[in-house]
């Protein structure tokens, strides 16, 4: 968990967005929602062109050499920005908690990794904890439930921040699940390496979501969202699934994850 600094420095204004590979490929709207929220909070946002992925697939598969190479590339791409903002708890956790440990034998790179770690933030935590944002200007007519993605929750302490911002969204009601903190079974490559276990886990998650009666499921990590959306849709449930940033940025009218454009 990142501990908040004792004295708050002036909020950074020039921030870099780490889009993440899943958002880039499957849900660009999340990136644009993040840009909008950051701009509304007074930041200028840049998207460094040489970013790709944070390296989790390699890291979690035990391929340390590739992970280091990818991490070094990310460290270069985000050098010089006051803050690096990520609309994903697991990619954020990767930058904040795991990069420095990759360079234990290289003090120069380790220092750079630690510097990046200090500047990196998950999106909702950056808005609330660093910029002090209390409300957003958005409307969403519906009852939502919020899934706490594991890395955001346990590595970065993201729990209250999205809820606090959601509370300011007009027309939105939040109804909590029984176990919002239990893993949805995504786990990156886990969900395809152990599909039966993953299915059992996401099946329970789906039952918990449905039991709330909410019409919309939100979370802050696209991997989990795609997994849960895929399961809910396979089961024929009428629950729309969105990244929390979309709703906070007032973009809750675009087609939900896994839904065709025409049905909007």
């Amino acid at each position, binding site marked *: 968990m990142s501990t908040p600094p004792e004295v708050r420095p002036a909020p950074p204004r020039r921030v870099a967005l780490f*889009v993440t590979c899943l*958002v*880039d*490929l*499957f*849900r*660009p709207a999340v990136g*644009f929602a993040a840009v909008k929220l950051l*701009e509304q909070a007074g930041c200028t946002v840049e*998207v460094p*062109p040489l970013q*790709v*992925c944070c*390296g989790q*697939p*390699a*890291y*979690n*598969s*035990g*391929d*340390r050499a*590739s992970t280091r*190479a*990818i991490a070094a*590339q990310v460290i270069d791409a985000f050098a010089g920005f006051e803050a690096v903002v990520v609309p994903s708890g697991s990619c954020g956790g990767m930058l904040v908690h795991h990069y420095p440990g990759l360079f234990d034998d290289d003090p120069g790179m380790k220092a750079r990794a630690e510097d990046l770690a200090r500047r990196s933030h998950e999106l909702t935590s950056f808005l609330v904890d660093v910029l002090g944002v209390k409300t957003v200007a958005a409307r969403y007519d519906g009852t939502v439930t919020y899934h706490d993605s*594991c*890395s955001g929750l*346990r*590595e970065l302490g993201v729990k209250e921040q999205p809820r606090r911002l959601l509370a300011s969204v007009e027309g939105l009601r939040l109804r909590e699940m029984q176990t919002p903190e239990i*893993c949805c*079974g995504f*786990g*990156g490559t*886990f969900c*395809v*390496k*152990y*599909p*039966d*276990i*993953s*299915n*059992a*886990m*996401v099946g329970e998650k789906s039952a918990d979501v449905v039991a709330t009666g909410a019409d919309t499921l939100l979370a802050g990590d696209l991997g989990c969202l*795609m*997994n849960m*959306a*895929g*399961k809910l*849709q*396979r089961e024929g449930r009428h629950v729309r699934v969105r990244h929390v940033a979309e709703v906070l940025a007032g973009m809750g009218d*675009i*087609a939900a994850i*896994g*839904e*065709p*454009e025409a*049905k909007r």
Partner: protein
Amino acid sequence: MQSTAHDFKDNVGAALADPNLQDSLAKLKVGFSERRRQAAERLPEFEALRDRARDIKDHALANLDFYLEEFERKVMALGGHVHWAPTAADARQIIGELCRSVGARTVAKSKSMVAEEIALNEHLEALGIAPIETDLGEYIIQLRHEPPSHIIAPAVHLTKDQVADTFLEHHAPLGFTRRLTERNDLVAEARHVLRQKFLDADVGLTGANFLVAETGSSMLVTNEGNADLSNTLPKMHIVLASIEKVIPTLEDAAVLLRVLARSATGQESSAYTTLNTGPKRNDDLDGPSAYHVVLLDNGRSSVLGTKMQDMLRCIRCGACMNHCPVYGAIGGHAYGWVYPGPIGAVLTPQLIGVEEAGDLPNASTFCGRCESVCPVRIPLPRLMRHWREREFERHLTPWTARQGLALWAWFARRPRLYRGMAQIANRMLAMCGRAEGRYRMLPLAGGWTRFRDFPAPPPGGTFHAQWARTGGKRP
């Protein structure tokens, strides 16, 4: 115990298809974690105690040779004996010989995971000595010829009905011919059957939760009091414990006991805490005349001083498995060897080899819930990742996964090329999935689409393509 860890995927299939198991797991998942949460909440200094518990174990491990020798000296001064067992086979042999030296026909055992680890029961049976499990859960699974499925609740995979059937089958010849349905009746019947066996046993064998160096005591906690009977009544008491159980002082034990019970069952403390300090003294009313401690290494000392040492802090509370969503889905037997759940995924490759147990550290989403509840703060996900790295280095990772990963990493290290490929992939996925917004089947993604739809990206291209198109502005 014979490992089936290499059959992990088949074990998983069987576990998911077993309705009794799924029934039992559903109860376990809410019960244990809720009780632990409440216990932790009731104790304001719980988090600080966890830090102290971690530090105590770290200190003991950093000076393990010193405290083990100290412990040995104390036991000997009390008139007891200490036996060093480098391997499981050594431990079996030592215990077998001790039992034979007193002509033992039966051994009353109280729950010991180390005894499972060295497959003691099979060995004793081969010697014509009958092991009798005195822990209720262990007794039930002994009757059913099953291994434990949980380190503190060995029969947690069974429903009450299954236990009722097992008792009827095995107790009917003893005159208990009524099928019982109430939990208390089942316990009473087991007690009745077991009590005589306690009295008849020639040797009592217990595990140990802690070995206290300053006093030479072994410490054992139970909720049934069975350990007290297995170590006071028979004439010989054997303590079987692994080397990392030693801690410096009784005061340290007090700290560890406080986090152990709360983490395990949510109790303030376990119902029985027993200290065994040497054989019966002259003025004692009862107790064993011979007292032996068998200290098992079995590969643990090779972990000392490595990045994996943290795994030896484990105090076997079971919290990591109680909170693990993977354990919650498949139960303990699927892990295929003695120690299930997150700690099993870390220990098993160490104890029986990563070639045999390579699936275990991979079958985790790294959700981190285990680490968040572990009373001695073992970084379980980090240790599992360590095993994945060893597997990758040694080319034990499946070939297709390696190739896929290598291809992906090659592109990921060439951002411009990657960008172009991502744009093509995005376009194709968006175009073909346009009508429905998702895929019910997708080539090469069978693991996903067998159970889930796969969301198609909306039209318009990747984020980076759109961003470049608008010159760095929101559309």
